[in-house]
């Protein structure tokens, strides 16, 4: 039986790296915004994308959600879900920045606090998007290959039956 990609050592360590990169960025980005929720609301409004009435709940909730997803990724807890969710937030940011770019709205993306209209925001958009695409890739990778070393998932839940079988096969193979 051939080894699946997900069981290879380098894949697992790549997941570990992806977890740490996306997780740490999310924690920092969220933590910088949590003390100033009204500024976060303002940053959301500057995109002129969401209906006005939901900008306040989004502005308040988003930093907390970022930190929680970030913590899950760094700790390796619910890695599959956290990876997909982290990727999803990055996708949302990419859509947001593309939207303001397409509409010629010049803002600070407010990614790490701040936000609002600014003089030469548009020049920054390609870099913001490039960064977020990289982080999106980290999230997708962790979602596709959630098994990784140094993760709470490993000792908290133990391997699921199918994963246990895969580990078993791997063991057999290495013996052969």
């Amino acid at each position, binding site marked *: 039986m051939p080894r699946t990609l997900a069981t290879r050592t380098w894949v697992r360590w790549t997941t570990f790296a992806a977890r740490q990169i996306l997780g740490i960025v999310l924690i920092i980005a969220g933590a910088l915004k949590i003390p100033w929720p009204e500024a976060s609301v*303002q940053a959301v409004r500057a995109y002129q994308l969401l209906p*006005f009435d939901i900008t306040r709940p989004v502005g308040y909730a988003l*930093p*907390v959600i970022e930190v929680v997803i970030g913590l899950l990724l760094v700790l390796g807890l619910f890695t599959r879900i956290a990876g997909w969710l982290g990727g999803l937030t990055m996708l949302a940011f990419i859509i947001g920045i593309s939207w303001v770019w397409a509409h010629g709205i010049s803002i600070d993306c407010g990614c790490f606090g701040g936000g609002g209209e600014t003089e030469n925001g548009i020049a920054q958009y390609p870099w913001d998007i490039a960064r977020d695409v990289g982080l999106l890739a980290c999230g997708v990778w962790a979602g596709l290959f959630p098994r990784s070393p140094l993760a709470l998932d490993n000792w908290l839940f133990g391997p699921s039956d199918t994963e246990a079988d895969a580990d078993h096969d791997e063991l057999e193979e290495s013996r052969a």
Partner: protein
Amino acid sequence: MTQSRREALRRQQQAQARAKRFQRIIIVGAIVLAVVVVGVFGTIFVSQLNRGNTADPGTSAAVPVNATADRDGITVNPGKFAAGVPKVEIFVDYQCPICKQFEGMFGATLDEMAGKGEIQLIYRTMTFLDNNLKNDSSLKAGVAAACADNSGKYSAYHNAIFAGQPATEGTGYTTQQLRVDFAGTAGITGAALSTFQQCYDNRVTSGFVQGTNEAAAKDQVNSTPTVMVNGTKLDNNKVFQSSVDVFKQTLLTTKGNG
């Protein structure tokens, strides 16, 4: 032990392990969700607390006398303009240096046109720089200006604030400036002064000013100064390159969007 009994035992153990695993997943998942909920509500709670401490002891619904019907701003020249003249709305944040620059370029022109009744002039105060500068001076200045409206000195007080704006953005306004100095410059004296100061000290108009900021954001104004004529936003690049005469013409000829 027979083969089938051993197999049955193994299955039972597996089922138990699965059930335990499932239980752990549910418990930890619930903890994570609880952290999210507590985090969001904690943020809301703390921010309300901060707001209460700084500027909102009375949570008053009081509205200054010349507030617009929608409570989104203050009319500078009530009763002085005829029906059908252009409605000019100026969005300002009292901590915004470019607003001071704008005021220096066109403030006198606006006052003059408003006085003659050529336009209906409305100032819509915003407070978003409080968030950017991490202080509460925009709100405090807005509250003071709205209180000055009750003393009949709105326009003069508005001008006094900009005249006294600190050179460095973010320094903010002192209580002395807002309670005493600007009031003096605006010509609020005697009994009117103590009424004004009482209004300011109790932050009577803070709910109104928070409302004008919210209303401006709702009208998709995210920066100051912004000039709106009959609901149409003017391009600031053009505004700041305009001579006084061109600016006047722009105000008088811009078509509305409604």
